[in-house]
């Protein structure tokens, strides 16, 4: 099995990866970073979203071998600052923006990227950025609220 060098959450990793193996499979099965989830395998649900040099990317349809050793891969496990939650993570908790939580890592990673790109998105911009993500529990309004509240710099208010 060929090996690859990856830069994941700031750490260099040498991993085994099959020629066709997806980044999602390598992260989950080789590195043990299981925060990014399999949801559809065709980039339609967003549960597998990670950042490649800050760009939100569907890891399930990205070949691991296509990623260079200098590309910074950031997963949900790399979003918090140690034990200190990222404001988006805190806002998701404050807005109760999850039920089963399976889509949550992908949602949060996408939201972090959105807010870096556009620190003050209006609701339409939030919806546009998040449209590729599925929350089957349908906590959508709460996710929008969490992102909106993060952008406002306040904690999401519990109603």
């Amino acid at each position, binding site marked *: *099995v060929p090996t690859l060098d990856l830069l994941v959450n700031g750490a260099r990793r040498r991993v*085994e990866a*099959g020629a*066709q*193996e997806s980044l999602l*499979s390598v992260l*989950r*099965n080789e590195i*043990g*970073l*299981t*925060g*990014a*989830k*399999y*949801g*559809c*395998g*065709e980039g*339609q*649900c967003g*549960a597998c979203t990670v950042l490649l040099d800050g760009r939100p990317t569907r890891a399930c349809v990205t070949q691991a071998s296509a990623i260079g050793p200098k590309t910074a891969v950031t*997963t*949900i*496990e790399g*979003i*918090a600052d140690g034990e200190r*939650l990222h404001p988006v*993570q*805190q806002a*998701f*908790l404050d807005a*109760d923006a*999850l*039920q*089963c*939580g*399976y*889509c*949550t*890592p992908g949602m*949060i990673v996408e939201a972090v990227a959105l807010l870096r790109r556009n620190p003050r998105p209006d609701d339409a911009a*939030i*919806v546009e950025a*998040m*449209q590729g*993500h*599925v*929350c*089957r*529990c*349908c*906590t*959508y*309004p*709460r*996710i*929008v609220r969490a992102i909106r509240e993060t952008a406002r710099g306040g904690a999401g208010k*519990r*109603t």
Partner: protein
Amino acid sequence: MEEDAFLDVERYELSERLPYRFAVDRRGFLQLVGVVVLVTVARSDAQESGRRSADESGPSDLAAWLHIAEDGTVTVYTGKVEVGQNARTSLTQAVADELHAPVEAIRLVMGDTDLTPYDMGTFGSRTTPVMAPRIRRAAAAARELLKEEAAKEWGVPVPELEVADGHVSHAPSRRRIAFGSLTRGRKLVRALGEDSPTSPAAQWTVAGRSLPKVDGRDFVTGRHRYTSDLAPAGMLHGRVLRPPAIGAVLESVDLSPAEAMAGVVAVRDGDFVGVAAPRADVAGQALESLKPAWKIVPQPSGRDLYKDLRKAAAPSSGEGRRPPPFVVGSVSDGLAAADHRLESTYTVAYIAHIPLEPRAAVAEWAEGRLTVWTGTQRPFGVKDELAQAFRVSEDKVRVIVPDTGSAYGGKHTGEYAVEAARLAKAAGRPVKVVWSREEEFRWGYFRPAGVIDVRSGVDAAGKLVAWEMHNYNSGPSAIRTSYVAPNQHIEFHPAESPLRQGSYRGLAATANHFARESHMDELATLLKLDPLEVRRRNLEDKRFLAVLDAAAERFGWQKRSRTPGRGCGIAGGFEKGSYVAACAEVGVDGDGTVRLLRLVAAFECGAIVNPEHLRNQVEGALLMGLGGALFEAVEFDEGKILNPRLSLYRVPRFKDVPELDVVLLDRKDLASAGAGETPIVGVAPAVAGAIFDATGVRLRAMPLAPRGVAKPETTSAKG
């Protein structure tokens, strides 16, 4: 009586059998120090919540148990599982409330068949009305036991003691002791039945408030381990060979190409063929290397579905599953006397659950004992399935359910647990099987499709004099009407479904409410009455009226918009102890595209346990409901699912979310009912009413407008 009806419903909707037939110690969980409280169940509902046989340890009618360790940790054991409905949080609140222990000290062990008492399953919105009171009783009994111990120790009367924050205290002597310290290495056991008192909702201090999700942090950091995230040492990744179409029979398969691959285990056992490999990608390659030959067996197509369902509902087809019709008075007499008569037929398509975490299981055999971690709503049911499949006694099987990435009624069966266990048995190592999204669509089961005929008669004052309703295949949940009618005939007709079908959030209550509430709207049109008014004239149930009025008021029903291209609808219902009413406003574009603009719902489920989590559940059920209402449908042809992917099957997304407003009615004088299901039932009829209001087109098929209103397939009568 009511319980029996409930069981019959679930039995019908759980009638699917295992897909495979393979060629064929008691756990000392009470050996603990500290306080142990056992909750036993009354004989009357032992069938649901106790267990059926005495083959497991502990009292035969144990429902839940609670342990307080010497460090003060409170552990509650319940067979219920967490699938996103936040039962872990609401049950924690129940314990904290009665025990007066800090929330942080309370831990729930859920859905572990070695540790938790038998439970039929997490479905039917039963956790809040049935399990929470049991756990409350356990916690209340533990509190009293601790007080008695403290009273003995200090030589003071029990009534002088107070319990707060995990401590018993005696104010007159200024003494205070932690729960755990009271037991001093002993084991204090108390067993109690169903009759012990618990606090009324008016006295709740922890319940009734919006306690945040107890382990929320694990989910936002990606730290929570779902079944599909588990990887015990030496684990292999398993894949299962699937037929090209439903009913296809395997004629031959050559396993040797897979077996030639390094580390790959390939299994054929009866109808089952699967592979397992140390690497996930290699497992996929091994599966692809198999060249099976299949015999295709002709299967029905979706084209004639509704005709087929009527045909299949011949009296003999549903033998043993057919509940008797509900009959009051004489419908024909009522119709003869009616001033107006109306007949219409409604249809509901198959839809898919699509739990975002696919069905998954990790299985491990060790010393003749099988342990399976799996996301299921029925851990004990899956345990039975495993014991049967492998012909081992039940005490050789343990099922553990990690908090699961949703289910919505879709994770009642254990075939994926069986698959992982079969591969693990062959491999002699743990094996994980995670279904692909396509496998989910093709080999899970669906919410039943159905045809519903309604015939009614009303008098000149708009009061129902006759009501007849026949549901073919979709199910009997909420088939009875809440509207007052002196003559009724209501009947469910089971059918042979061309597709595998089973439970889904709300079961058939969604279909039956769609038909009933749409028909009430049609009567309103016939009588030239306001849709709310026709309902009011036929309702006596004050709780139903209360949600209708609350939704109408918040929505502004009486002064609703009359903008061209826009319309409003209202619908309501009752199921599983709770009431919902929904008002919808839609916009219909020139090309027929329907957009849901606004949705207001009022919901009442007795005393509210956790307002924020309840609101979240209600919102989620409403929005999930809009998928089935407007566009979700499984398409199939000759035994093949034609849209088995998220790129082909549309689910609600961010852009589909309307302006949403939920009114919660808190009835502290009523017992709390479950809330995860019923809010879904009002959406489709409210939207159908709104589309009619906007366009004059009455849509009687769910989904209402997958391709817009103007298309003929949505406006033609079906059935």
